[in-house]
């Protein structure tokens, strides 16, 4: 046993898969300690806030200021308001309106802005320009007006009784605050989703749920497959025929169709994460049953089994001590694959809206379902679905890699 484990950990494939899985598992346990709280808490009011660090404007305006004179500050400010693409668009508008732009240098901001201010009217409708494009120019115009805004912003406070505005401070272009001193800074490395929830926190929690679903589904499938495979392989005869008949029926019906039908007929209210996991397990045992059976058939006429029979051991004892240990490595491998396919099956089901009905725990499939329902893929909110896909891929990849590594250890013909 000790030797086998040592051998297993010498397989580079197994170790790579194992390390990836351990990293995922550790993240699952450690991240909630760093960032505790309900993963489904809707912190954002809008949808799909971009990944990044969010600083409270209110707190920042009341934090002690430092004056920094940075030479490139104005340029950066200008670039943020007026990008190169915006400049090109402005030129496009001029040509659409038939304005003479000969001799105009696109990088000459002042000339460009003067021309714009002289000619642009929000009501003008250049021929063939879409509504969306016209709205874009309206937004651009607003931004351009900010460029010429005054250097100082006045902060006022409404008086509680009279309702008059009282000046309490001002902000100039050279005022800075230290982020570390601002009371409220929220880092959202993966932004928020359609309900304004922290995607990273949700993802970590969903990964845990999905792995548990995979483990339950894998355990159910392996137990059913193992029990039926052992029974039909060892007992043989009519029992074998009956079990194989049922197994063949289940094999012929596409598993996923069966899964959809069962999930649908269970009904939304009963479909918790555990129920979905068990349903997945109940539809994916056939492969294990068939392969365990063929392994057992090759074992049952071995001399050591005959000797065990002659020693008067009971059927259960022979199966447990003379057959099962010989196929244990095989069963472990089958289990790993079942866990991996269980996670994928949950994701597929949830994507179709047949996954666990839950408002308390996210799963990887549900996260993709939400992202799809709120068109994250069409409005460019990649952070809502891409990290989920990556996580599923990593889990499946690590489990399959571990499986291949084990296969190479236990099956000498596959060794390099």
């Amino acid at each position, binding site marked *: 046993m000790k030797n086998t484990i040592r051998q297993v950990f010498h397989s580079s494939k197994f170790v790579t898969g194992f390390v990836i899985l351990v990293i995922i598992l550790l993240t699952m346990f450690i991240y909630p300690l760093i960032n505790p709280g309900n993963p489904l808490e809707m912190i954002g009011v809008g949808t799909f806030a971009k990944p990044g660090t969010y600083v409270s404007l209110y707190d920042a305006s009341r934090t002690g200021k430092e004056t920094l004179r940075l030479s490139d500050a104005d340029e950066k400010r200008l670039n943020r308001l007026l990008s190169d693409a915006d400049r090109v668009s402005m030129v496009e508008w001029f040509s659409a309106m038939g304005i003479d732009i000969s001799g105009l240098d696109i990088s000459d901001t002042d000339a460009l802005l003067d021309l714009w201010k002289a000619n642009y009217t929000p009501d003008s409708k250049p021929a063939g320009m879409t509504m969306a494009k016209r709205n874009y120019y309206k937004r651009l115009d607003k931004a351009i007006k900010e460029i010429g805004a005054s250097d100082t912003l006045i902060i006022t406070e409404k008086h509680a009784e009279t309702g008059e505005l009282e000046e309490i401070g001002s902000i100039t272009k050279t005022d800075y605050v230290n982020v570390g001193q601002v009371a409220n800074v929220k880092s959202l490395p993966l932004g928020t989703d359609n309900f304004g929830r922290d995607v990273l926190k949700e993802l970590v929690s969903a990964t845990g749920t999905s792995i548990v679903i995979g483990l339950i589904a894998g355990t159910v499938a392996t137990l059913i497959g193992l029990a039926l495979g052992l029974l039909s392989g060892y007992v043989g005869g009519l029992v074998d025929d009956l079990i194989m008949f049922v197994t063949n029926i289940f094999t012929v019906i596409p598993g996923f169709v069966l899964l959809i039908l069962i999930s649908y007929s269970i009904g939304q209210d009963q479909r918790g994460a555990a129920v979905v996991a068990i349903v997945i397990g109940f539809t994916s045992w056939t492969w294990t049953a068939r392969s365990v059976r063929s392994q057992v058939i090759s074992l049952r006429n*071995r*001399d*050591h089994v*005959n*000797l*065990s*029979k*002659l*020693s*008067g051991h*009971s*059927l259960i004892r022979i199966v447990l*001590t*003379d057959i099962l*240990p*010989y196929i244990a490595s095989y069963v472990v491998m089958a289990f790993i694959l079942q866990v991996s396919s269980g996670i994928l099956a949950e994701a597929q089901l949830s994507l179709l809206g047949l996954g666990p009905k839950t408002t308390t725990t996210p799963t990887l499939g549900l996260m993709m379902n939400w992202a799809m329902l709120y068109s994250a893929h069409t409005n460019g909110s990649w952070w809502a679905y891409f990290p989920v896909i990556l996580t599923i891929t990593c889990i499946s990849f690590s489990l399959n890699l571990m499986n291949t590594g084990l296969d190479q250890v236990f099956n000498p013909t596959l060794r390099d």
Partner: protein
Amino acid sequence: MSEIKTQNAKDFTDAPLCLSGRGVTKAFGIGEKRKLAVDHVDFDFHEGEFVSIVGESGSGKTTLSKMLLGLLNVTEGQILFRGKPRDISSGRKKREYWKGIQAIFQDPFSSYNVFHKIDSVLLDCINMRGGKHLPKEKKIEMMTEACSFVNLKFAELTNKYPFELSGGQMQRLMIARIFLLRPNILLADEPTSMIDACSRATILDMLLKLRDETGMTVIFITHDIGLAYYISDSVYIMEHGKFVEAGAPDKVMLTPEAPYTKRLISDVPKIHEPWDLSTVDLLQQEA
């Protein structure tokens, strides 16, 4: 030729019957594919007798031995155990029957469960003989005795796995197992064919010693007619699932009647004589 004598052949025809068969048949497959592996054989094995069943590969020896052990069902015919029809219809009856008949298999390397230590193999035998509640010291004493019977030292084997031993040692451990179990019948299915010639002599010697000490019937299955001649009290020659010749070794070997027996005898290599390989040609022509 009359100078050649078997070593210790005795006549057991008057001894009580231990295991006998009437029209024992085993068929595999159905319809056109039905093949008789063992074809209506009759036999009488007596108590204390050393019987050899000789035949080449595929002649049905191992199928017959599995039927005798009750590991395979008999298609047709009857096996009598100590004069009475054998009843192994239930698991309990089978276990009772196996107290009376035990086996040594051909391949020592696959005869042991690789996950069980040698101690547990031997302890199993003591438990089977009803020694489950004996004190530990007594059990160790019994195991030590059994091991020393086959020239093994229990102290060196304890806590070891069977696959750590050599083929010859494993087969001797099998005999130690039989020594503890003391069945009425021992079925040895080519126990020496997978081990080297020196170990072979030791194993055979131990089997004979075991028979002499316990009075058990030994059914020795082999493809080596020369070997059978030297150790048996009676010999059965098997060809294509049938016994073509049976009787005392002297009779079978010195005055063979069946052509198959003659061929088997001529196939035994003799030292200082050129080996007659003509039968090989005959076989090829048949094929």
